[in-house]
């Protein structure tokens, strides 16, 4: 029992941040779709009974959110024990803050943690820096006139999103291993004598990881913007055309600014997720050579908890991460409030 409580926290689900992220879209949907129905239901009847009905409608989701986002927080208790699965939490020794102290006990520990944080933030900031790419991609895609070509491009770029990282690695391996396609072709052409090391090297790890995640996520990321583009008021385009705007000016002065609200919301949400770059990608690509630069926080938690079998310490690390995530969300929200006058919470 205790393990399952521990696992979500251990494997790095930063419960509050995720909970917040999980609640928010739900909230958005509720406020987005319900007012109409609610108003229709409330105004004529306007009694307590219908709001009770409404409550029962959302109750299952509240229960699910509680079960999967809040209940696992009980697993945080693991961080204060020397948890041994065979003995259960009750049978394990209470050690207080030992694991937290150990995380910061020596310069080498701090240095390792620092490197992990650097990797995490680097991957996140590279992600932010490239987060406009899906916007541009969607805008350009939208300008394609031939529907068959647009659909083909969209399908082909969206498809990689549905390929698991394990398969992506398989592709990467058959292309870029020492005996992979690229090295064989280059070798056959006489361009290289020793195989180039693409996968087992500590050079440009951040960059290659970014390219892989862009390849996988670009088309998918553009979908939301494509949807946003369709909801832009056609009157804006018409009046601009009457004023003599050409296609690029339409993109520059109408489409782009109209997409900004969507972009900012997504950006703020991703800031709260700054410490969660997920671990699948890094897990499949990691090896002894790139480990120093590929180990992001989630992967570090996994490596300590599951590979290294120190479940309690990994939980402690996961807790710290959750706290930082909450702080980041609050900070990002404050910035957004000041800059745009609206809060996302």
């Amino acid at each position, binding site marked *: 029992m205790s393990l*399952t409580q521990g696992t979500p926290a251990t494997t790095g689900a930063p419960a509050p941040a995720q909970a917040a992220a999980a609640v928010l879209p739900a909230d958005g949907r509720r406020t987005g779709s319900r007012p109409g129905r609610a108003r229709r239901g409330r105004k004529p009847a306007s009694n307590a009974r219908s709001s009770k009905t409404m409550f029962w409608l959302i109750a299952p989701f509240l229960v699910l959110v509680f079960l999967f986002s809040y*209940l696992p927080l009980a697993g945080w208790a693991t961080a204060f024990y020397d948890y041994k699965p065979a003995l259960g939490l009750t049978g394990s020794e209470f050690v207080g803050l030992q694991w937290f102290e150990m995380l910061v006990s020596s310069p080498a520990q701090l240095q390792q943690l620092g490197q992990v944080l650097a990797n995490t933030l680097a991957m996140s900031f590279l992600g932010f820096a490239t987060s406009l790419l899906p916007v541009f991609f969607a805008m350009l895609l939208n300008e394609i006139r031939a529907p068959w070509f647009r659909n083909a491009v969209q399908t082909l770029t969206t498809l990689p999103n549905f390929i698991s990282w394990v398969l992506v690695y398989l592709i990467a391996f058959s292309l870029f291993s020492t005996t992979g396609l690229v090295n064989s072709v280059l070798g056959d052409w006489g361009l290289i004598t020793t195989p180039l090391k693409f996968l087992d090297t500590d050079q440009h790890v951040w960059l290659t990881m970014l390219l892989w995640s862009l390849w996988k996520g670009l088309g998918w990321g553009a979908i939301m913007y494509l949807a946003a583009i369709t909801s832009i008021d056609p009157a804006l385009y018409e009046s601009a055309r009457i004023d003599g705007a050409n296609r690029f000016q339409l993109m520059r002065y109408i489409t782009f600014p109209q997409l900004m609200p969507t972009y900012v919301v997504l950006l703020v949400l991703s800031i709260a997720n700054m410490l969660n770059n997920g671990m699948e990608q890094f897990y499949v690509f990691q090896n002894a*050579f790139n480990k120093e630069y590929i180990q992001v926080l989630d992967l570090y938690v996994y490596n300590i908890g599951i590979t290294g079998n120190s479940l309690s310490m990994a939980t402690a690390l996961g807790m710290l991460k959750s706290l930082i995530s909450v702080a980041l969300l609050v900070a990002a929200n404050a910035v957004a409030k000041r800059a745009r006058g609206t809060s996302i919470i």
Partner: protein
Amino acid sequence: MNSRKVAAALVLPLVGALSLTACTGPGTDEEVAETVSIDQDWSQADPITIDVFDGLANYMGTQSGWFGKVVKDKFNMELNVIAPNVAGGGDTLYNTRVAGGDLGDLIVVDKGEKLDELIEGGLVLDASPYVDSMANATAFDAALDKLNEGKDGVFGFPTAVSSIKPTEPSEGLEPTFGPYLRWDLYAEAGYPEIGTLEDLLPVLEDMQEANPEAENGQKAYAISLFKDWDGNMMVMGKQPTTLYGYDEMGFVLAKADGSDYQSIVDTDSEYVRALRFYFDANQRGLVDPESTTQNYDTMFSKYQNGQVLLSWWPWLGQSAYNTEQNMADGKGFQLAPMADQQIFSYGAEVYGGKQVLAIGAGAEDPARIAAFIDWLYSPEGVNMNSSQTGAAAGPQDLTWEIGENGEPALTEFGNQVFLGGGADVPAEWGGGAYTDGVSTLNVSTVLPKDVDPDTGFPYNYTFWPSYQEKVANPLTEDWGARMGDAASAMEYLQDNDQLLVAPGSSFTAPADTSEIETIRSQVKASIIEHSWKMVFAKDDAEFDALLTSMQETVDGLGYQTVLDFDMANAQAQNDARVAVANEFG
């Protein structure tokens, strides 16, 4: 029980994590009587399937084939093998099942920390009621008593027990470790002399130059590495140290005779020497560039194809490449005569090996499992069960028989199975390929080198005179002629005083405290990471820089604490070795 689990799984999302407590140990309802006899005809009992959590198994699923049929006929029982090795992810499967309160009905697990933890957590059954009637298992009472010493009952049954002296090697005709070269290529190179480890490099270079491509057209390399088994250190880095009598105890390399203890990260340690050996080899172009990404299976198939020329283990190089056909052509892996080698050998374990058999606390029919365990200690059980890697001969009258001279000999079918590349089992034995039907438990209750009381010869058929006459071939003849007419690698090593036997004391290191465990896991990750980088370093300067970086990093992580702990364990292990050698040797 299965339907209950399914129901639990369906209810789970609704009732939430709290319902998980419901999964904790179904438990036996009836009280176990004082003593229970296991002596009955189990073939008439109700059919059951038991979960076997087996830390040694390399196969996951229901035991099929002839071994499955034998167990089914005898016990009306099917074995559902759960193999953490196959599942991967280290201890994840173990932790998950243990947290769920049911590890398995039959458990094969390490003694020491894990067994103690399971006993404390109430996950293994006290088998005391059954022991009295387990005649085969209690024949090894010294090991059984030692294993359960200080425990409130009989919780574990020892594996790999032996009646051989602990100062004698436990291995068969070949040691566990050794420098095994492609003997045919070594011969082509003119049998150059090999003084010490580093002298292998020029020899290997000559061999690789003379044989740049294997028969399949792929490039051949002298050395190929893999990372799957990396533990406290890079596993391929440890192997050359065994040639000088060292074995690992955490981060300590301890010499078999107790004369030396090294910290692996020391600049002049044997481990760093091994890393430098690989580094030099890589500089000479002798290391397979796929080493960094491949797994054991890929590497094994390269050995099978003749793409690798050096093996630190006979059970890798020989079992992959020394087929009957290759050996008839004079090709194969054989022990190289390295002048200064002192190869580490595990002495026979009077008190049993590292793993134990145990009955799960939630087992449905513990008496039947006890009967099964007891059967595994019987000569019939040993012959059948140890046939996967232990080289026991298999079922009598199928693979072997007692010949006219009263000595055991392989049957025609046995020859086909062990020397001819496999055969299909007759229908009365269940059909299917023989190798698909061997016991997937992969654990020997009795050491296969031990003498079968029924035949008077070892269980391991490679010791039988009838077998040794049969297998003479151009490869072994050439090797024997060069090695002073030695009949086997073991004989050569013993005659030349190149074998260092660590007496089999059955010592188990005490459990790491969680602090040490945590430091250890971080330190070993760092050591492995640095080791691989060192092997593939660009030049000497980078190699040395990485070495320094490794030493500084692990020191900062708390290496010294773990080293002190390991050092104390290594000393204690040596004391135990001395004690057992004095008592039985």
